[in-house]
């Protein structure tokens, strides 16, 4: 029976199938042109288009005031001892915490966005060692942690659980995303207990303290300036971005993109999901199209794959900005390429617990606790490589836990708590 089917309808079948290809190809073309215009801020090739449509995309994340502020903060003076950068801050408004002064041990509740990237994992290990220290000191009895696994809804549920049933004396929240978490953070604030927000921000200033390094724009400025200084006008930069929609990452790109545009650097950006296969394909395709002089990354995860793509293609190494992840630092040294390791200070994972120590002691804390954020340059690289010798590839050089118990074994073994 089925053998007959082969014959007469073959032509129909193939015609239809080719029709499929035709239609699927023609659906590509509109796709092509629409995305060509409304995403044109990415390619920066057609200035008019990016002014009209692209600005809509940019406005979402580019904020001139914040940009200017972070531009200044890069050279600001930080209060406190540079030996303990996780306690440094830029002078500003302080929160009075005398009402929170506590006797005895208190319970902290930590709503964590996730530990799904090496940066968060390193910080999470450091945070746990910091916790041990504060437990020994009798400041904190325990820290109950709920991991939202990168899911907004889970994190909202986590925070609500903490509020209603957690028996918490204080909240630490590392928001998964900016807008979605705002209401939940406000509900936590309404309990009247101290709320410490760190890393990604939320759209409310109700928290007792909001801890973060200078920020994404500073990252974007540092990296873009480095590339601009080391490249010629008209050179091409491939920007590898992890994912859209997270403020700290979007601001890195928004800052860098602005400078690339202003300085005539042709930058193309891609979302990679940190998948090394994607990264390698993207770079290889770009090299196939023409020369690539620079690589910009909004996080160092996958930097090695990007560099390998140049090696495998037989192209010259690019000028590149990665991150202070050991993979990149090692590959950077090995290849001798011109590079910079921007830092999104991993030691900030210590600060929330140290902030709680201050809060429970009734000491004032900065309302917005801005931590230092200084890139690692080629001159400093050797020192950081030496200091972190034996650390795994996913470790971050500026993790800031050298004085904590368990150093260095805990970080070397990298057992995720």
């Amino acid at each position, binding site marked *: 029976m*089925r*053998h*007959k*089917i*082969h*014959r*007469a*309808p*073959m032509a*129909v*079948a*193939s015609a*239809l*199938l*080719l029709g*499929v*290809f035709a*239609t*699927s190809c023609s*659906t*590509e073309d509109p*796709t*092509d042109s629409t*995305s*060509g215009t409304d*995403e044109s801020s990415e*390619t920066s090739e057609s200035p008019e288009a990016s002014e009209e449509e692209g600005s809509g995309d940019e406005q979402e994340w580019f904020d001139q005031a914040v940009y200017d502020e972070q531009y200044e903060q890069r050279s600001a003076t930080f209060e406190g001892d540079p030996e303990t950068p996780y306690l440094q801050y830029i002078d500003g408004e302080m929160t009075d915490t005398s009402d929170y002064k506590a006797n005895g041990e208190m319970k902290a509740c930590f709503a964590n966005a*996730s*530990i*799904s990237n*090496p940066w*968060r*994992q390193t910080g999470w290990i450091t945070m746990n060692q910091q916790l041990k220290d504060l437990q020994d000191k009798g400041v904190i009895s325990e820290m109950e942690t709920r991991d939202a696994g990168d899911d907004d809804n889970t994190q909202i549920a986590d925070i609500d659980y903490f509020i209603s049933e957690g028996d918490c004396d204080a909240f630490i929240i590392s928001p998964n995303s900016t807008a979605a978490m705002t209401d939940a953070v406000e509900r936590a604030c309404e309990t009247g207990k101290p709320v410490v927000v760190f890393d990604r921000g939320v759209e409310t200033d109700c928290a007792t303290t909001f801890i973060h390094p200078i920020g994404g724009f500073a990252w974007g400025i540092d990296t873009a300036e480095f590339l601009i200084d080391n490249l010629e006008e008209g050179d091409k930069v491939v920007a590898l971005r992890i994912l859209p929609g997270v403020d700290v990452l979007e601001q890195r790109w928004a800052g860098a993109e602005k400078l690339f545009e202003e300085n005539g650097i042709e930058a*193309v950006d*891609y979302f990679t*999901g*940190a*998948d090394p*296969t*994607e*990264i*390698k*394909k*993207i770079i*290889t*395709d770009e090299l*196939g*199209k023409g020369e690539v002089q620079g690589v910009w990354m909004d996080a160092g*995860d*996958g930097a*090695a*794959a990007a560099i*390998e793509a140049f090696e*495998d*293609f037989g192209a010259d190494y690019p000028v590149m900005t990665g991150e202070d992840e050991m*993979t990149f630092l090692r590959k950077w040294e090995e290849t001798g390429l011109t590079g910079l390791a921007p830092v999104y200070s991993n030691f900030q994972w210590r600060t929330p617990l140290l902030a709680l120590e201050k809060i429970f002691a009734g000491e004032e804390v900065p309302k917005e606790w801005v931590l230092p954020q200084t890139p690692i340059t080629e001159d400093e690289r050797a020192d950081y490589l030496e200091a972190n010798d034996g650390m*795994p*590839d*996913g470790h971050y050089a500026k993790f800031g836990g050298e004085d904590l118990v368990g150093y260095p074994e805990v970080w070397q073994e990298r057992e*995720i708590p």
Partner: protein
Amino acid sequence: MSTATSSPEASAAGRTLPLTEGSLPQRLLRGALTPGGAVFILLAVLFIAVVWVNPSFGEPPQLIRFIGRTAPIAIAAMGQYYVIVAGEFDLSMGAVIATQVVIAGNYIGDDESRVLPAIALMLVIGVAVGIVNGLGTTILQVPSFIVTLGTMLALGGLVKYLTGGAATGNPVDTFREIGRGGIQDVPVLDVLPYSVIILVAVAAGSFWLMRSPFGRTLIATGDNPDAAGLAGAKVWWVKTRAFILSSLSATIAGILLVGYAGVHPSVGAGYEFQAITAVVLGGVVLGGGRGWVLSAAAGAFALELLFSFLNFQEVESTWRNTVQGVIIILAVAASARAWSLGRRPPSRSTPAAPAPSPTTARPGTETGEN
């Protein structure tokens, strides 16, 4: 096993397949007009389009690298083909790849002496996953969609447990050479990636396998499992082997991907759907019983060429999934329409003449199978 049980199948298969009639050019032409053959035309069209927008893509060194990097997905597509042509699905493929990638990273690490044990371990795991999928589908009678979804989730959890969801260290470079390196200084090509050699070997093996008794039975089983069972085929074992082949293909893809890119839990993500898309694009009928294994590989190349084309046209890579979705729906719709048209009575007017044919050996395939 017994000629008695295989006789109904034998008499059906004894008639000539239209595709095996006529001279070679005629056969090629007819083949090209089937969904399974049309994909090669599509491949050529896409290739010309890509070279049109980016001439350097056509240079042999670049082309061979493209083939090399597409090898994992093409191999995965051929693996998925076995399962689909048997009338099932394998959704666990991407998770198998991720698992193998992570195992390679964790187990081998910097220890060169562990390369061979690791490969053995990975193959064993591949077979084990295939057996679980196969037996779950056949013996436990759970739809393969659900069984493989289950193994996908289970393996995904394992990967998450092993890595915490983030990249871990890469395995030693000698292991990565398999997917990254190649034979240097080859004339014209410049470099011949090992992955291309492996792809050719897998393709040749698959081609041979589909012409072997196993392949014939597999297609018969996909077309009509009851009939195949009555004809004496051990349906559960045929399908289970299809699942094993699928997981093994995923394992090979995983080995190549570790080499190509390195260890990251997201490696392999979406491979099951890319493989299914490739198979469908290759004109293989969902539900089983029809399609060519090499068309599945060609489908994978067509898909990657399309993505490259879009990339060269500066289309956001975020559109890829949309493109893939549209292709799946249209390709399935088109081929389903084609087959159902074929079932209408008029097609009776063009029955195959009982001409002598090289395929008369077909009945023997069932006997050999059991």
